[in-house]
């Protein structure tokens, strides 16, 4: 496994480093924007508003887009390996191990980028707290923190920031890993179903949405069976119970998709064009 991960690192070190530098760069830009906003707080309202909206847009991009690099890595890595240049599939290493190594690398990419992104946001929040003495700055610092944590979650039950941040992190991690394995599974399904590369790409996208839709439908069906009267509300408003339930379903779907993908690649998918 270590050798497999080492091989992934060698192949994708440029991509990983570029993403890491982008994350650091964006965190620094956010910090600068915060300083700018604080300096403009006494200026014209429009400029101040633009700067503060810029902050939130930046936070949103950092926290949601950067960790998706893990999913992009999975698409690049698996699609390349299963295609003509799949050197790793010429080796006697089992498909289970190969796919696991890709998921571990994706997880490591996510963790690193998330740590940098979240660290950057907290830094921006602290700058706002330290520089500004007026209540507006305190409020902005608090909003940045809330915005970073509360994009998916708005727990009414939890008032504790570290716990809220931890829940957000776990949910983001599981969502990203689920998306990664869903992408890999969609590619392997498409690869099994068609020989032409163009059709495979199209089918991968179609399979991705079909499987994601099936998962949502199963979630709704389970909610109905459990006599949850307010299904729609439960899907969009995050309470602690719903979030834990989402986490559980993400883990279950990811494990199923991993088994499907590895079995399909191992037994059915042609590894060369």
């Amino acid at each position, binding site marked *: 496994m270590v*050798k497999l991960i*080492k*091989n992934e690192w*060698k*192949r994708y*070190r440029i991509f990983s480093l570029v993403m890491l530098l982008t994350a650091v760069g964006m965190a620094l830009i956010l910090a600068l924007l915060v300083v700018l906003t604080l300096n403009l707080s006494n200026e014209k309202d429009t400029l101040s508003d633009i700067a503060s909206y810029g902050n939130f847009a930046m936070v949103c991009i950092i926290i949601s887009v950067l960790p998706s690099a893990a999913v992009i890595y999975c698409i690049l890595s698996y699609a390349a390996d299963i295609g*003509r*240049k*799949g*050197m*790793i*599939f*010429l*080796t*006697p*290493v*089992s*498909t289970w191990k190969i796919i696991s190594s890709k998921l571990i690398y994706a997880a490591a990419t996510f963790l690193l980028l998330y740590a940098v992104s979240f660290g950057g946001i907290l830094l921006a929040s602290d700058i706002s707290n330290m520089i500004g003495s007026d209540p507006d700055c305190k409020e902005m610092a608090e909003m940045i923190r809330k915005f970073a944590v509360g994009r998916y979650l708005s727990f009414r039950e939890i008032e504790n920031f570290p716990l809220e941040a931890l829940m957000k992190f776990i949910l983001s991690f599981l969502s990203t890993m689920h998306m990664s394995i869903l992408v890999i599974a969609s590619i392997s399904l498409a690869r099994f179903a068609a*020989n032409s590369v163009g059709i495979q790409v199209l089918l991968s996208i179609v399979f991705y949405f079909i499987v994601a839709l099936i998962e949502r439908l199963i979630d709704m069906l389970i909610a109905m069976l459990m006599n949850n009267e307010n299904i729609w509300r439960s899907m969009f408003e995050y309470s602690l119970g719903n979030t834990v339930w989402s986490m559980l379903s993400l883990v279950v779907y990811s494990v199923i998709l991993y088994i499907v993908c590895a079995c399909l690649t*191992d*037994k*059915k*998918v*042609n*590894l*060369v064009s």
Partner: protein
Amino acid sequence: MLQMENVIVRFGVQTALDRFCYSFEPGHIYGLVGPNGCGKSTLMKTAAGLLKSYSGNVSYCGEKVKTEQRSKIAYLPTHPVYYRYMSVDDMGAFYEDFFPDFSRDEYRNMTAFFGLNPKQKLSGMSTGMVAKVRVAATLSRNAGVILLDEPLNGIDMLGQDQIRQIIQSIDLAGKTIIISSHLLDQLEAVCDHVVMMNAGRVIFHGNMAQLRAQYNMTVSELYRNIYAQYFQAMAMGGGMMQW
């Protein structure tokens, strides 16, 4: 022994291997020849365990060819397979990491024999130089079966001679080497058996020395005669010719 029984491989409506049956015995070097699209590469991929959607049986030493058998079967694909980050040395490191039968020293010797710079990136090399690296990596494995799919493609004449020398120096005890190529003269110099294919089937096979003695012609001449008669027979109603 690498055995293939009734192997059928289809790509859509096209049948690449059509009830292919053949036993490749250890201690021999087989030359796999035939016109473009006759199924040579498909046969190689199937024997290497890379094509999964087939019917029939492919086994090595009595065991069905699966992922684990790749540790005993060395395969050189036609198309250049390497990662962009790789230098000549990195290729050796990769093979060392993943193939227990790989000898790094032998690889270093072979690449030096080909005059390749160990630090040079494969992505910056010519097709022929990359082909030499790939041949060196494959032949540095001590595998029971060595499948070389058009190993001489893009390699200059001197390089071809070097590869021929390396293949001829391999100790064949317990080993089977299968080489597909259109360069019959080169094949004739290294192979002891020839297998001629068309439309996914074996149409003719035999020991090279015996064939040369029996028909008093080179393998190239034999190839031309056999395929001329084969296509003529097919055009006239499909009966197999007698040899």
